[in-house]
């Protein structure tokens, strides 16, 4: 009896272990990333495909933390914006076209992060309003011009309501998301924080690798 119960529990645990964190996606090819091992990142002012004018501010203000906590030096985002402006570059589309060699020359960063915001804001509906922030990002080596990594992430206030079977982490994130929504007026800004952490914090599935300032550096 006892033995059978334990066996059953063991099987459940094995299933948890196997499915809980494992990704069903194809693993990312990190060959270029590992060859380049950038130490510093310039976050370019994000492109904005959403209809919310303020979206780039929300994303740019909250891009430093996940990258720095992942072990990278991040070029001060406010000064970089100012430097672009002083060089006559006020819009993100133009900035994203600047040759990497030029960026490297001015900022001295190893890599550039090109963010594109695809969704930002709250859609008000009769029954419920959803706040969604989605973005994709590309990390480019400013020394070689090679793409080191690409990814995308999204966060939505609807997550908490859907009874997702995401395991412990999913439940926790949903709780955080719900709390954010119920306690803030600038819901999109707070949601952008969840999105940027999902997008830019190392250690996730197919996410960025850890940088030199992290204790996890080269262990991934």
């Amino acid at each position, binding site marked *: 009896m*006892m*033995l059978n119960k*334990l*066996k059953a*529990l*063991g099987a459940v*645990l*094995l299933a*948890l*272990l196997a499915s*809980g*964190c494992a990704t069903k996606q194809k693993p990312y090819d990190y060959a270029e990333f590992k060859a380049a091992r950038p*130490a*510093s990142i310039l976050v370019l002012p994000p492109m904005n495909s959403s209809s919310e004018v*303020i979206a780039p*501010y*929300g994303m*740019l*203000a*909250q891009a*430093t*933390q996940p990258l*720095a*906590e992942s*072990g*990278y*030096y*991040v*070029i*001060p*985002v*406010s*000064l970089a*914006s*100012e*430097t672009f402006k*002083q060089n006559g570059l006020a819009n993100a589309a133009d900035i994203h076209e600047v040759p990497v060699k030029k960026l490297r020359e*001015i*900022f*001295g*960063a190893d890599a550039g992060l090109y963010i594109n915001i695809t969704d930002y804001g709250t859609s008000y509906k009769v029954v419920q309003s959803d706040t969604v922030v989605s973005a994709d990002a590309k990390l480019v080596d400013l020394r070689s011009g090679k793409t080191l990594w690409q990814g995308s992430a999204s966060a939505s206030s609807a997550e908490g309501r859907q009874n997702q079977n995401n*395991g*412990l*982490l999913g439940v926790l994130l949903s709780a955080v998301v719900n709390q954010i929504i119920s306690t803030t007026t600038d819901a999109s*800004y707070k949601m952008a*924080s969840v999105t940027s952490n999902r997008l830019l*914090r*190392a*250690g*996730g599935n197919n996410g960025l690798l850890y940088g030199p*300032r*992290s*204790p*996890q550096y080269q262990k991934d």
Partner: protein
Amino acid sequence: MEALSPSHERKRPTMMNKKLAAGFALGLALALSGCANHQQKSLYGWGNYQDQLYEHFKTEGNGNAAEIAALEENLQKMRANNDAVPPGYHAHLGMLYASIGKEDQLIQELQTEKTLFPESAPYMDFLMRNYKKGLSK
């Protein structure tokens, strides 16, 4: 190659149980820690830094004095907590000082950024070379 003694037979299930229990405990620990272990200890103190950046972008440089006060206060808290100051913090603060005419403070903050983060050296040097042209409005 004879059949096991009766006493041995009684023992086996309990031994098995112990092994399974140990395995179960290990499995539980793995399952609980496996997903959670990317929640590392923070490398830096953050406080209001990102919110202040957002504020700075939104006000388009019109709230600089208030932002300096908020960031300096936050800096005191970080020091009290023994938290490392995050990348960009000192440089951003320096830019705000420059905007209210305190250019010596700008140089000092850029130097601090450079000392804390040698990776910033090329850009900090670029800024120091160019600050006379007016870094910020």
